[in-house]
């Protein structure tokens, strides 16, 4: 009895609370989606625990469990096509990105190409911009009245160079805005792969292209495969570009799932799509994990061997020109959004017919609320994730809680739209009716972005030696007080870095915002999305510029903190 009391100290209580948090807001929703995908109708698992009547009806539903739902769905041409299309999309994007990135990565890692610094810096742009804004930017550029289309027509082309409202459009946006995810791991792979083997090959008289294909590339192959798997998951789970660009006749899993929920309230259908999404994403994530285990392509911070960078004029110039083209397109896309945000009207001619700040005025007078909402929601998610992540890393590092480590990384594999659907389904009735509240939105953001935060806090936690904490306990502090007064302050740099990252990603978040945000809590991303749907392009553009500016400022703060930490 007394032992029990001893073990029930403050920290144990916190640990239990953390498990309850994950259990209630992540595992239960996922489980309940899984159940619903079989029963085909809403199932209130939480209610079943508290209310006997609901329990009975739930048991009734369980009795009717069958694979019928799945059979029906997969004989439904729409869903099968959606899965097929999503896989094709992710596959195409992956292949193209890898092909696009290999020369770019090679140029950065191995040559002295001109403008290398500029090119590297411009590669940051795609990471800053949320995909629904990039998709919208492509409409401004490539749409029927887009300026690229106009130039193309002036040069004698017919119709549109690239129809943004098509599979090709979605592919193009994803390629140009996801390529940095593959680029940096590839650069690292090219940097670490053993250069002496290549030299040996060249000494034996092999031509350089031969060396590249048969020696350099195979050496970098593990890095390439791992990046490819990462891109596949990212592309497959992306909601922003398909929801803006996919035409009615192009079924994609994420869009289809969104329509089932928001248009038809078809719980069974949405649940099945969610389950399929999670399984596919988890599978590819798992593959990638297998591939990177024990290797560290992503973060080569140690000094790579001194390599002689290639100086061949022709090669470096061609590579530089090619790289500039790749990185210029995201930049032009963003400039187009910026230009649209100050245009009176734009579309008849190559350039806007006039310039005005009215769109910004409108935003600051009518949509200030959205900006505030974004900041408040992001702050809420930040605070919650700091608390959760700090304790999670404490338990993982100090108490070797492998279970918690695993649970906290689950959000990485669940696509946002899938997680949103799971939450709506679970919390739209009593006993915990949270759908439509800001709280659920904050919780959703928190869980989705928790892995970033945990990674960051875990790093600083590992750097704190256990005996420092024991010293505090020895001096009379309870483990909880020691955690608050000693461990917490020492983790501050890690927490700060993670916080900025969480804040940024929450502001950029589209899928969860669009699904879960109630009108009175609409954040900027939802406002932009709605403006695009209503064809209010100019306000959408102005709001997008504000969002990107906000992200840029925060990113600058983050890198400032990062630099200070290194000192």
């Amino acid at each position, binding site marked *: 009895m007394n032992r029990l009391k001893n073990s029930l100290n403050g920290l144990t209580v916190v640990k239990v609370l953390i498990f309850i948090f994950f259990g209630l807001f992540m595992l239960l929703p996922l489980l309940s989606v899984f159940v619903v995908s079989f029963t085909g109708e809403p199932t209130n698992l939480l209610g079943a625990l508290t209310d006997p009547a609901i329990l009975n009806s739930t048991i009734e539903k369980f009795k009717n469990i069958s694979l019928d739902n799945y059979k029906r769905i997969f004989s439904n041409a729409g869903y099968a096509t959606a899965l097929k299309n999503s896989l094709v999309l992710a596959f195409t994007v992956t292949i193209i990105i890898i092909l696009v990135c290999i020369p770019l990565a090679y140029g950065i890692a191995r040559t002295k190409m001109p403008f290398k610094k500029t090119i590297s810096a411009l590669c940051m742009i795609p990471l800053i911009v949320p995909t629904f804004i990039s998709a919208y930017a492509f409409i401004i550029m490539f749409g029927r009245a887009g300026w690229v289309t106009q130039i193309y027509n002036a040069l004698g082309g017919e119709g549109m160079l690239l129809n943004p409202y098509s599979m090709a459009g979605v592919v193009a946006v994803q390629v140009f805005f996801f390529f940095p995810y593959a680029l940096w791991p590839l650069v690292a792979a090219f940097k670490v792969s053993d250069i002496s083997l290549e030299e040996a090959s060249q000494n034996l008289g092999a031509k350089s292209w031969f060396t590249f294909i048969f020696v350099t590339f195979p050496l970098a192959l593990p890095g390439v495969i791992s990046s490819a798997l990462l891109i596949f998951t990212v592309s497959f789970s992306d909601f922003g570009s398909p929801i803006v660009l996919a035409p009615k006749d192009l079924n994609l899993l994420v869009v289809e799932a969104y329509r089932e929920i928001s248009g038809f309230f078809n719980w069974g259908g949405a649940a099945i799509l969610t389950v399929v999404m999670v399984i596919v994403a988890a599978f590819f994530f798992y593959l990638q994990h297998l591939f990177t285990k024990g290797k560290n392509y992503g973060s080569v911070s140690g000094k790579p061997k001194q390599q002689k960078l290639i100086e061949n004029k022709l090669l470096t110039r061609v590579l530089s020109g090619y790289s500039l083209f790749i990185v210029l397109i995201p930049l032009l896309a963003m400039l187009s959004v910026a230009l649209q945000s100050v245009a009176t009207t734009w579309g008849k001619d190559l350039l806007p017919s006039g310039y005005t700040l009215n769109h910004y005025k409108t935003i600051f007078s009518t949509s200030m609320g959205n900006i505030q909402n974004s900041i408040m929601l992001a702050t809420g998610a930040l605070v919650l994730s700091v608390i959760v992540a700090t304790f999670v890393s404490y338990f993982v590092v100090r108490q070797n809680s492998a279970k918690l480590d695993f649970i906290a990384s689950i959000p990485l594999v669940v696509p946002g739209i899938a997680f949103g659907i799971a939450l709506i389904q679970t919390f739209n009735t009593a006993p915990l009716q949270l759908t439509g509240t800001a709280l659920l939105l904050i919780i959703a953001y928190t869980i989705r972005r928790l892995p970033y935060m945990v990674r960051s806090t875990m790093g600083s936690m590992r750097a704190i030696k256990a005996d420092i904490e024991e010293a505090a306990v020895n001096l009379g502090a309870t483990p909880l007080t020691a955690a608050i007064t*000693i461990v917490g302050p*020492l983790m501050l740099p890690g927490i700060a870095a993670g916080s900025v990252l969480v804040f940024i990603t929450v502001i950029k978040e589209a899928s969860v915002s669009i699904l879960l945000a109630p009108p009175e809590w609409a954040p900027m991303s939802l406002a932009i999305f709605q403006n695009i749907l209503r064809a209010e392009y100019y306000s959408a553009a102005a709001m997008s510029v504000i969002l990107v500016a906000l992200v840029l400022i925060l990113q600058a703060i983050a890198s400032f903190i990062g630099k200070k930490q290194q000192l």
Partner: protein
Amino acid sequence: MGSVRIEKMTKSFGDFTALHDINLDIKEGEFFALLGPSGCGKTTTMRCIAGFENPTSGRIYIGDREVEKIPANKRNCGMVFQSYALFPHMNVFENVAYSLNIKQLNASNPIKQMGIYGRLLSSRLGKYPADIRNKVMEILKYVELDNHADRLTSELSGGQQQRVALARALVMEPAVLLMDEPLSNLDQKLRHSMRNTIRKIQQDLGITTIFVTHDQEEAMSMADRVAVMDKGHIVQIGTPTDLYSNPSSPFIADFVGTSNILEGTVEGEENGFTVVKGEGFLLRSSTKTKKKSVDVIIRPEHVKVEAADSVIDHNETNVIEGTVIMSTYLGSIVRYDVQVGSYQLIVDTTYSSGANIFEEGKKVKLTVEHERVLLI
């Protein structure tokens, strides 16, 4: 109040038993050393007393209280860690004041607690009351760090950090002071002066102290009593002189100071002395024993070296003949390695200037008094 008693304590990690049936009885105010080779379980014993590990079985009493159910933060054992474990984000003053803050925290209402948390997180967020301030400064003065109070601990030398750790543990007026190899991170010279500092403080305050070390010289020169540990067992407990002159096993004889250990067979008794014979020697010892085969322990400094032609009365003392293999001049003493039968004996003789040193290859006579031949 400050005594420590351990009864039949064992500690296992999985299927590895780190401590076997440990029994200790440490008196109030005693300076007690735990001595033993690396991995013998010294730290584990100490962590069990401090409450960081739970013994698998057995009991620990601090004062008269059985402490099994008392969590580490309520045991009132001041611990000085081997790595010092100073709080790197706090300055010297804040480090030392930590336990006083915590004490106050536990005795305050929630509103006052906020203030205390504030000053724990940053001294700018809360003022220290005068009593805490005075007490900390007093102890800092005591360890001669009062004019370093505002320094960050990373800006201190090793010896200063060591004293901060000591002050931090002492300020809470612990029932027991636990020190885990506190001097092992210091250089030779500092180690000697810190030995004196620690011993003096312990004497002044009369605080029960358990001192872990693997350095026999440290244990012997500082402690009132020493427990020698080996592979999770306590092999002998005694005062330093006890251990030195009456080691209970060859292991201790070897571990506590340098020893010559010879294997011998008891031949019988003669004039009240036990006669032992071995390869190349015949000795008489005042140790009584019932055993047949014994270990003969002779300390290097208890042997005298005489020229081979000197005349010695064999009834007065033992005489062994040998050959000098090596002589090493160590300042005030000369150490000889002497071949006796199949053994190489170590012999230390005090060197007075002008005396002649036996060269290598020289035949010599070694003499040892009967009382100095130990049989175990």
